[in-house]
């Protein structure tokens, strides 16, 4: 009994191992009459709101393109994978999509994941367009481009904007010390603030493990006499900061960047708290141009939410890929590497217009060239600040 048990154990273990592997035999290259586009983002976990916005925004663009006849007559097949905001899982997600036969990648949603995945896309020479990976290193390789502004770009633009428009004399900053995006903008902002007509009087951090109570950060800004508080953070934390500032009776100008977009759509949020909030964002959900109105309507119908900047970036990303493919003239029959080389070349030639800018061009470094728009919230809606 003992011996048979042991032999049995080895047999069972190997049987289990083999059965687990058997289910996932390699299935490269699908049909060659569709473009296969994959998207990666955190669909579960604390950052799921951003990942879901990205995959949903891209889905709408894919549906529209397919309805209108596809890219050069070829339809798009679209698949999404979850990375839980974890760089390791993001690489796993990428590999899963590769097995599915992905030819072009829209992702990853977040910076650290995007950097990790870019190491693999570089090796495979696959074209990668990250909608919202804003850290500098995301586009380190020549096969990676991005739709959003880079972190340094936003930090510099914010500092200049505050300076040029004489918005403040004393500036307080509240940033997320555990987040790549937030600390990246914070660093550049402080660097750029040197020699400007305002002074940074307080810079207080918080972490994702400690993002409920902001009384200290606000009190310090208040005590230092800051008349503007710069918030290079996402809207979910910012909504709490605005609420707490209101309860303590502190009302400086709050100034955010693109992560702030979405604050007006938080369910049940008292938008009067966001009155006077300024933000530099490429996208505003209540813009009145036809493209935005149409997108917001479709998104609302399909997902019951108002899209934020992440969704808009991803929507644009799919259209940018479409424009680049059309310019390059590749077909789905080409290999991943051929598509990448051709699309990469086309990226620096195209001029795209989308939700996040009416005129976007790219340099070979992968950085987009577009103007940030400053908006201010008045009566619960965005109004251009110019």
């Amino acid at each position: 009994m003992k011996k048979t048990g042991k032999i049995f154990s080895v047999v069972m273990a190997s049987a289990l191992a083999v059965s687990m592997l058997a289910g996932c035999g390699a299935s490269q290259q699908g049909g060659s009459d569709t473009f296969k586009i994959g998207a990666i983002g955190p669909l579960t976990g604390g950052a799921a709101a951003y990942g879901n916005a990205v995959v949903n925004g891209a889905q709408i663009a894919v549906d529209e393109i397919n309805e209108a006849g596809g890219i050069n007559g070829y339809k798009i097949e679209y698949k999404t994978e979850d990375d839980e905001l974890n760089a390791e899982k993001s690489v796993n997600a990428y590999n899963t999509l590769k097995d599915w036969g992905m030819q072009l990648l829209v992702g990853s949603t977040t910076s650290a994941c995007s950097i990790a995945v870019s190491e693999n896309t570089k090796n495979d020479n696959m074209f990668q367009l990250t909608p919202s990976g804003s850290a500098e290193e995301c586009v380190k390789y020549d096969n990676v481009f991005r739709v959003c502004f880079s972190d340094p770009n936003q930090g510099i633009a914010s500092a200049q904007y505050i300076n040029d428009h004489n918005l403040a004399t004393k500036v307080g900053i509240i940033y997320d010390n555990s987040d790549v995006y937030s600390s990246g903008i914070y660093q550049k902002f402080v660097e750029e603030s040197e020699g400007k007509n305002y002074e940074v009087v307080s810079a207080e951090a918080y972490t994702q493990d400690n993002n409920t109570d902001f009384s200290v950060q606000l009190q310090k800004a208040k005590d230092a006499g800051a008349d503007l508080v710069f918030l290079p953070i996402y809207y979910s934390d910012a909504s709490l900061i605005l609420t707490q500032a209101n309860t303590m009776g502190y009302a400086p100008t709050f100034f955010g960047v693109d992560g702030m977009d979405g604050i007006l759509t938080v369910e049940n949020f008292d938008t009067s708290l966001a009155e006077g909030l300024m933000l530099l964002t490429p996208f505003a959900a209540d813009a009145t141009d036809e493209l935005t109105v149409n997108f917001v309507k479709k998104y609302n119908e399909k997902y019951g939410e108002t899209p934020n900047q992440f969704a808009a970036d991803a929507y644009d990303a799919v259209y940018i890929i479409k424009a680049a493919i059309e310019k390059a003239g590749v077909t789905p029959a080409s290999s991943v590497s051929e598509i990448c080389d051709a699309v990469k070349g086309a990226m620096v030639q195209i001029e795209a217009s989308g939700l996040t800018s009416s005129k976007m061009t790219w340099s070979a470094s992968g950085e987009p060239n577009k103007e940030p728009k400053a908006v201010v919230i008045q009566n619960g809606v965005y109004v251009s600040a110019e």
Partner: protein
Amino acid sequence: MSFLTYLINGLSLGSIYAIIALGYTMVYGIAKMLNFAHGDFIMVGCYIIFSVSAALSGNSVVGIIVAIILCTLLGVTTEFVAYRPLRGAASPLAVLITAIGVSYLLENIALLIYGADIKSFTSVINWEGVSFAGGQLKIQGVTIVTILVSVVILIVLQLFINKTKQGQAMLAASEDKAAAALMGIDVNKTIALTFAIGSALAAVAGALLCSAYPSLSPYTGAMPGIKAFVAAVLGGIGSIPGAMIGGLVLGIVEILSKTYISSQLSDAIVFGILVIVLLVKPTGILGKKVQEKV
């Protein structure tokens, strides 16, 4: 003056930790298990209040009552389905891991139902609070209510445990389950009752947590849950007044260290203080020292 402001802020935060820690320590003290899902019971309570209030156009009292009832049911069901089968398992870690499974389960169910985006919670307390020194010092209404509610819960729990038959049964069960059973105590029933009370407290804590910090997501309960656990340990886990003191101390320490030392390193400082306290007093501030028998 500014020190007093920070102290009051610390008190506000601490009162929230305290009320969560009460439920935590209750379950731990009697059932002798770390219910890692306690924070998620809080989250469930918040979502119930949110939904019911929305359906009844802002009637939060009904919302709280419904949340207390449903959370109690959830607690008892979870105990029956997931924890009871593991009572008497060869290792106490088995039930701990199951609690983590329950925690994931609740978070993911909430994610599927409500989505990942945060919801803004309308405070259940419509009281501005009181101001001193010409409005320079302000104690928020929710802070005062939280502290009062915590004190009431503290007293009621103490009376319940020390003066009622059920409470004595709980104490007995926490000391020695086998001996308690021999004395005619229905241990299963007693522990189910503990979970019922603990989960009802989670619903109350949820209402107050989300009133003080009105942002609701499937992961709302996780970190306050862990912090409250730390508070309960700091106060001496299993001790009900200890949980209250631990919560208040933790909140004040957190705010003051953020203020006077470093906001970047505040997590490290808070946990560092926990380590120091436990080294000086290995069973927490009010913990009983258990003499080990050979």
